[in-house]
C-alpha cells in the first residue's frame, strides 16, 4: 500500500507541472502586468520601468520565464509576492489555519446532518419523509453559497448578538455562519449520495443474513449496511473537503475570512503572478494529497479494495 501511495504521489508531479504551466501561460495572456499597475499609480521614467521589469523577471518569452520559475520551484523557492514582497510560501502558510478551521467545521456539520438524513430517506423510500428530505437537498444543491452567506448575515448575524458578520477573531462564534454556508451544498450532495448508496446496499442478500441472525434492525442498517455504503460517501466528502481545504473563495470573500481563497483572488486581481501561480500549485497539491488519503481510506473500509492495492504492488515488484 505504501508503494501504491508513492506511485500516486509520483503521478501527481506531471499534473502539477501541467497546472503550473497552464496558469502561468493564461496569466501571461492578460494585458498589462504589475508594472503597468504601478505605472498607473505613479509616474516612472523609461529606465525605471525597464529596471522594474528586470527585477520582477518580466522580460523574456513566457517559456524562458516559466523555465526559470520552475528551476527555483524545484529548489523549494516559490518566489516572492510582487505586491507585498514577502515569500509566497510564508503568505500561504499564514493563511492556512483559517482555511483548515473552516474546512473541518463545514465537513463536520455536513456529515453529522447528511448521513443520518440520507440513511433515513433510503429506509423510508417513497414516503413523505423521503420526498421532503430530497426536496430539501435539492434546494441545498441549487442555492448559490455566497448568497446563502449573505442571507445568513442578514438573518442571523445582524440579529443575534455575539455572531459576527465576518472575520476570524471571535472564536467558535465566527466559524458558525461560514461553516453552514460551505456545509449546505456539501450536506445536500452527501445526503443524496448516502441515500442512493444505501438503496443499493439495502437490497443485498447479506443484510438478510444479518437479520436472520437476530440483529436489531437499527444495527443492521447503521453497522452492516452503512459500512458497505460508505465508499461513494467518503469519495464525495473527501473531494469536497479537499476543495474547501484549497480555499472556499466565495465564502471567504463574503465573510472576510482570512483564508487561502481570498489570497488567491487578490493575487490574480493584482497580476501578482508568482503569488497566484504559487498558491494555485500549493492548492492543487493539497487537493491531490487529500484525494490520495481518501483513496487509501477505501482500503481500510473495504478489504476487497485493499486486496487490489496489494495486487498492483505485486505486479510492480
Amino acid at each position, binding site marked *: 500500500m505504501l508503494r501504491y501511495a508513492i506511485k500516486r504521489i509520483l503521478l501527481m508531479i506531471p499534473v502539477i507541472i*501541467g497546472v503550473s504551466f497552464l*496558469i502561468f501561460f493564461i496569466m501571461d*495572456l492578460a494585458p498589462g502586468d504589475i508594472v503597468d499597475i504601478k505605472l498607473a499609480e505613479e509616474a516612472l521614467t523609461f529606465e525605471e520601468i525597464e529596471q522594474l521589469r528586470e527585477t520582477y523577471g518580466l522580460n523574456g518569452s513566457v517559456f524562458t520565464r516559466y523555465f526559470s520559475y520552475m528551476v527555483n520551484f524545484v529548489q523549494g523557492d516559490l518566489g516572492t509576492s510582487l505586491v507585498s514582497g514577502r515569500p509566497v510560501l510564508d503568505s500561504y502558510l499564514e493563511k492556512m489555519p483559517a482555511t483548515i478551521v473552516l474546512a473541518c467545521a463545514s465537513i463536520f456539520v455536513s456529515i453529522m446532518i447528511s448521513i443520518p438524513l440520507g440513511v433515513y430517506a433510503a429506509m423510508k423510500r417513497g414516503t413523505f419523509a423521503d420526498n421532503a428530505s430530497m426536496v430539501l437537498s*435539492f434546494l441545498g444543491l441549487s442555492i448559490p453559497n455566497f448568497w446563502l452567506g*449573505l442571507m445568513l448575515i442578514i438573518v442571523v448575524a445582524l440579529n443575534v448578538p455575539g455572531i459576527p458578520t465576518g472575520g476570524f477573531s471571535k472564536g467558535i462564534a465566527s466559524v458558525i455562519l461560514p461553516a453552514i454556508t460551505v456545509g449546505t451544498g456539501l450536506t445536500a450532495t452527501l445526503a443524496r449520495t448516502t441515500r442512493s448508496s444505501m438503496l443499493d446496499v439495502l437490497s443485498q442478500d447479506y443484510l438478510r443474513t444479518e437479520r436472520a441472525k437476530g440483529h436489531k434492525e437499527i444495527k443492521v442498517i447503521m453497522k452492516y449496511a452503512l459500512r458497505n455504503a460508505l465508499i461513494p460517501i467518503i469519495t464525495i466528502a473527501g473531494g469536497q473537503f479537499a476543495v474547501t481545504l484549497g480555499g472556499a*473563495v466565495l465564502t471567504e470573500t463574503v465573510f472576510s475570512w482570512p483564508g487561502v481563497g481570498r489570497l488567491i483572488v487578490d493575487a490574480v486581481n493584482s497580476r501578482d503572478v508568482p503569488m497566484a501561480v504559487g498558491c494555485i500549485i500549493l492548492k492543487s497539491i493539497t*487537493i491531490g494529497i487529500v484525494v490520495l488519503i481518501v483513496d487509501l481510506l477505501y482500503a481500510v473500509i473495504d478489504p476487497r479494495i485493499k486486496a487490489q492495492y496489494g495486487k498492483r504492488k505485486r505486479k510492480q515488484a
Partner: protein
Amino acid sequence: MSSTNQHMQNCSTTNNQSITGKQYVRQSRMRIVMHHLRKNKGAMVGLFIILAIVFVAIFADVIFDYDKDVVGIDISRKLLGPSWEHPFGTDDLGRDILSRILYGSRFSVSVGVVATLIGLGIGVIFGAIAGYYCGIAEDIIMRINDVVSAVPSILMGIVIVSALGATTFNLMLAIGITSVPQFVRITRASVLTVRNQEYIEALHATGISEFRIIAFHVLPNCLSPIIVQATLRIASAIIAASSLSFLGLGVPAPAPEWGSMLSLGRQYVRTASYLTIFPGLAILITVLAFNLLGDGLRDAIDPKLKK
C-alpha cells in the same frame, strides 16, 4: 467476382437494416423517456419554470425600456424599499430591482447555455477521440484533462476571466472551459462501451469512414448521459457565472447581471437587505429548475438508477 458482389450486397442490406432499426429504437425510446419525464412532477415543474424564464428573457425588450427602466439612473428614487411601484425596491442609483432581475434572466440563461455548449462541444470532440482511438491520442487528452480538472473550476474561471478581461463572452468561455473535463470523461466512458459493441465492428466491415462511424453511429448512442450532464451543467454554469460576477469578474456594469447585483447588495446588507434577497432568489429558482429537469431526465433515461 459474383461472390464478392453478393457479399457487398449483404453488407449494405445489413447496414440499412441496422440504421433503420436504430432509428426505430431511438424514436420509441424518446417516447418512453418523455413518458417517464411527464410522470415526474419535479421535472415538469422545472421545465415549466425554465420555459417561463426563457419567455421573460426573450421578451424582456418588449416589456421594459432598457435605457430607462434597467440602466436609467434616477437618484431621486434611490434605495427605496419594496412598494407597489417598485415591488423589489430600487438600488443605489434608483434603478428598479424587479425590472433589472427580469432583464437579467437574459444574461444568466444565455451564459449558462452558451458556456455549457462550449464545454459540451470541446468535451464531446476530445472525449470521442480519446474513447475511440486508444493509445497516444487518448493518453495526451486524458493527461491534459487531469491538469485542467486539478484546478478547482471557480479558480480556473477567475484566472481566465481576469486574464482575458471581464466581458460576457469571456465569462462564457471561462465557464465553458472549466466544464470541458467532465464532458470529456463522460463521452469517453460511453464511447468506450459503445465502441466494443458488435454492430460497430460490423460497420467497420462495410468500409464506411471512421468519421462517419463516430459521428453517426457511435455518438448518437452515447447521447443520453451527455444530455443529462449538460442539463445539470447549465445549473452549475449559472451559479459559476453569478459567482464570478459577484467577484467583479463577469458581465460588466451597468448590465443587470444577478451576481453583480448581489455584489452591490453586499455593500448595503445592513440597510437595504432587499437588494440582496431578490437577485439571489432569482438565481436559486433558475438553478433549481435546471437541476430538477436534469435529475428528472436522468431518471427517465435510465430508470434503473431510480431504484
